[in-house]
Structures are given as structure tokens and as C-alpha cells.
């Protein structure tokens, strides 16, 4: 097990009270596993990704623990996390266009970045990795503004994985890209895993079809809780949680003739997480809801590696 997250709770502090954005999520990640984290806006997927590397000022670590390679990560304490960042846990930010220092040439920026972590720059290794993502060596002598969007994205991917982190978090890195660039980025990420540059990866996206191209396991979240976690093909072909089922059936596809056939959405909105009522958070929108849903459904392993938090599935 590379990563073990146990009952993690992270709340946002607001004037009206705590927003329970991440409320008791547990999962594990094996060596070499890519986990696709999917869900709608406000489901807590970005909060989970951020919690593993840096909590910003509004976020509060309320409970639960994170263990990476046998060490407990001090995720609640900003300064104590510093030795882990970049070396053990690394992040590819969503806005790679503005992630690099615009006042430095890229080569110098990378060197300074490594020096700040007391690491020496291995130029041969860097060149090898640039070649792998099909960037010419001379980008190191250029300023970020001289690169195109896709090139900047690839450069940031190389920098983030330069110290071979155990865990790489990729948060919505493809949402601003065109389909063909998207495919290239996803293929590169897979290559990083296959070559052992990163041990395991969490790929956060709202696009389930894209996640399925890359991830070994897909975890679907709803309103701050885990809804379903299973091998990618199971989530796509035989989901058990009603939310996953409805979500998958509402996706239009290429290569299907629709003519007069209509897909249906999910009526209603996710609940407010300010003071959520106890019980299943999906029950107001769920077609299968019954009395028992007023109690919190625990995540249950219905088959091997297939975890569902629903009374009807268990």
C-alpha cells in the first residue's frame, strides 16, 4: 500500500459555520495504481486532492489520518509537510499556464527549485525526460511566455515528477485542453507511471469517460462522501450505487445514434454541506430511497475491491 487514507475529514471555515466538504473518506492506493477521482462540482474531490498536499488557510483538518509509504503525513501542519512536498507528494496544478515563474528562464527556475529542496539538478535525467514528452532541450533556455499552452503543460508535468514522488496528484489538468491534447497528456501520465517516475497517482476530473482511459480504479464522490469505488471497468459497466448509475446513463456518447432517444439527467441539486442532515446525502434525489436512508450508509465492500455506500447495494 502506498497511500492509506482513513476517515479523513476536512472542513472549510466560513462565517456561517463549517462546510463539511470532506466528511469521513477512507481508501487505499496500491503501488503503481492510478486512482481516478470523479464527481460533480462541490463533491469534495478537489478538497481531497488538496488535503493530501497543502491545506489552504480556510481549510481545517478535523479528523482522520493519511499514511504514505508507512509514514503518517502531518497534513494539518503546513510547515511539517514541507519535507514531504515535491519529494514524496507532488502536484500538477490545474492552471499550468500560470504555474511557472514568468521572470526566470525555465532551466534556471528548475535549478533554483531543486536547490531550495537541497537536491542537485541531474541534467542528463532532465534531458531524458524532456525527450520523453517530446520537448526540445532548448526550452530550458526559454521563458515560459515563449512556450505554447500544451508545451507549458508538459513542462510542468516534467517538473512535478522530477524527484520521483510516491504520490502524484493531478487536479483537473485536462479540463482546459482540446481533445487531441487531452489524449496526449493522459498518455504521457500513463507513461510516467509505467516508467516508475511516480509510484501512484490520483487523477481528479469531472469527466468519467476520460478517467476510464487512464485509471485502474475509479472513486466516485458525492457531497463530501465516498459513493462508490471499484475497478474502472466495473464502475463504467456495472455500477452499484444509484448515483453512479444515473450519472453514467446521463452521458451522451460518440458513436451512438440517438435519433429520438432521450437521455435523462438527475433532478434536483446536491445538498448544502453547511449543516447537512444525517443520513445518505443522495437520498433527496435518489429514486430508490426508503426509510433506512435516514441513517448514514457505511461504505461496504460488496465484492473484492468494490466498495459501495448504499443500503440498497449492500
Amino acid at each position: 500500500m502506498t497511500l492509506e487514507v482513513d476517515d479523513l475529514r476536512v472542513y472549510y471555515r466560513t462565517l456561517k459555520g463549517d462546510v463539511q466538504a470532506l466528511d469521513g473518506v477512507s481508501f487505499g492506493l496500491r503501488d503503481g495504481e492510478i486512482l481516478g477521482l470523479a464527481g460533480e462540482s462541490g463533491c469534495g474531490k478537489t478538497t481531497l486532492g488538496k488535503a493530501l498536499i497543502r491545506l489552504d488557510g480556510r481549510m481545517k483538518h478535523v479528523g482522520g489520518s493519511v499514511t504514505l509509504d508507512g509514514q503518517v503525513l502531518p497534513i494539518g501542519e503546513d510547515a511539517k509537510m514541507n519535507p514531504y512536498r515535491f519529494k514524496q507528494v507532488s502536484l500538477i496544478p490545474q492552471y499550468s499556464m500560470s504555474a511557472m515563474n514568468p521572470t526566470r528562464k525555465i532551466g534556471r527556475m528548475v535549478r533554483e527549485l531543486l536547490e531550495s529542496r537541497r537536491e542537485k539538478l541531474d541534467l542528463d535525467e532532465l534531458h531524458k525526460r524532456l525527450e520523453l514528452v517530446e520537448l526540445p532541450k532548448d526550452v530550458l533556455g526559454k521563458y515560459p511566455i515563449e512556450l505554447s499552452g500544451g508545451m507549458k503543460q508538459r513542462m510542468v508535468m516534467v517538473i512535478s515528477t522530477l524527484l520521483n514522488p510516491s504520490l502524484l496528484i493531478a487536479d483537473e489538468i485536462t479540463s482546459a485542453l482540446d481533445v487531441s491534447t487531452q489524449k496526449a497528456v493522459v498518455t504521457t501520465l500513463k507513461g510516467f507511471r509505467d516508467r516508475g517516475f511516480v509510484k501512484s497517482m490520483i487523477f481528479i476530473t469531472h469527466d468519467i469517460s476520460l478517467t476510464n482511459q487512464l485509471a485502474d480504479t475509479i472513486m466516485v464522490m458525492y457531497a463530501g462522501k465516498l459513493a462508490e469505488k471499484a475497478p474502472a471497468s466495473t464502475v463504467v459497466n456495472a455500477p452499484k450505487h444509484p448515483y453512479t448509475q444515473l450519472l453514467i446513463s446521463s452521458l451522451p456518447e460518440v458513436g451512438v445514434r440517438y435519433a429520438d432517444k432521450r437521455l435523462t439527467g438527475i433532478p434536483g441539486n446536491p445538498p448544502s454541506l453547511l449543516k447537512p442532515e444525517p443520513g445518505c446525502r443522495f437520498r433527496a434525489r435518489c429514486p430508490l430511497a426508503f426509510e433506512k436512508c435516514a441513517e448514514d450508509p457505511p461504505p461496504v465492500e460488496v465484492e473484492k475491491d468494490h466498495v459501495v455506500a448504499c443500503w440498497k447495494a449492500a
Partner: protein
Amino acid sequence: MLKLDGVTKVYRIGAFGGQTMTAVDEAGFEIKPGEVVSLIGESGSGKSTIGKMVLRLLPPTSGTISIDGRDVRQIGKRDYYRKVQGVFQDPFSSYNPVFKADRVFTMIREVYFKGVPDKEWTAKIEAALDAVRLSPGAVLNKFPHQLSGGQLQRLLIARALLLDIEYLVADEIISMLDASTRIDVLNLLADLKQRGLGVLFITHDLALGNYISERTVVLHKGRIVEYGPTDAVFEQPEHAYTRKLLASVPQLHTKWEDAS
């Protein structure tokens, strides 16, 4: 019929506008009443520029846009906007957060329906809200932040319907919405087309275009590379670019490796 004929748009770029960039190059296609035409392309392909030219927010450099055979430049803007309206990508920034969301209706009334009595106006709004499947109690008298993205987007469509429009330019209207609500807005467009509305559906998402449209236009670097019935474009693409685009679409039930 809304028709574009050899429409070209050249932007001046660089310091002092010394250089030029051709954003749209000799584009020509048509939208009939009661059909959805999707305009598909990657970023920078000129799809939004075409939308803006149809909405007359930008003048074309050359070529003509005509409606029922009449050049749109001969039609006054006030009359033109009773026929053609647009809805844009970001529903959250389309509203002024200081005012209630239904102010978009009041603004229409001030310009186009000054003499209409209150009772008739209320009935008109209710009919428009009914057409976009919103209940008046849920959306009227609310501020934008109290409504969801899907509701805001449908309000904007209702606003366009108040004017009894014939054509709607929908520029990436659902790319900001969640998967579970976006399909409702798409189905709404399908209902409206049955009422005779022509829709120009601009998107970068091929799956959405495939779901909703009768005909598809594929743009690449400002040029139309493929134009035809949706089934033909998606099943027997003729241009290499369309084939490449289709091959990169992530599909739910097939992986890229299996497809190639």
C-alpha cells in the same frame, strides 16, 4: 433560413495592429428553422467568432450573413434581435449579482414591450418559463447566487424566447454545467427545435454535438473541413482532421488502445 456565405473574419493583432490573423476563412453553411446545427472545433478554430458574427457583435471582414434571403446589415439591430438571440458559456457571470436574476426579463420589457399591461406580461413570462421547464416560484424574485447554473442558463433561454425568436446561438452553453444537469438543458434545446427554433450549437465536445444536432460543421483553423448530416460526419468522416478528432474522444465503453 439563416445563411452564411463566404464569411471571413480577419483580426488585427500585435502591437499597433501590424499583423493580421484570419480567424474565419470563407465559412458558408445554413441553419433551417427547426434544426440544430452544431459547430465543432478546438480552441482557436474560430467557432465563437462565427457565433459573434451571427449575433452581430462583430462585423465580418467579407462575405454575407442573410436571414430569409435578406442581408442582415439591412435589418435594424432592434428588429434583428427579435429574431436572433444568444446564450453564452458562463451563466454565473452573465448576470449582474447586485440585481435579482429576473431583471433580465424587465430589461427586455423596457426595450420591446413598453405598452404591455402587467397581467399580459406575467402570462408571457410564465409561458416562457414553462417552455424551459422552470417553475416561476422557484426562480422569480431570486438573486443569481440563489439559483443553480442550470437554472440560470435556462432563465437566459427563457429570456430569449420572450422575443419569439427564430434562431438561437448557443455558445458552449453547457460546458460549465455538471454532467447530471447538462442533459436537461440539452433536452430542452431538442424540445425547442420541435417548436421550430433553429439553433446554432457551438461546442468543443463531440459527444454533445452527436446527441443533439441534425447537421454538423467541423472547423479547423478557421476553415470548414467537414459539413453534412451528423450521422454521416460521425460515421464516415471524410477529412483526416475529423477522423483524428474522433479518434481522440474519450469513450465510456471503449479504451483508446482497444480502438486503434
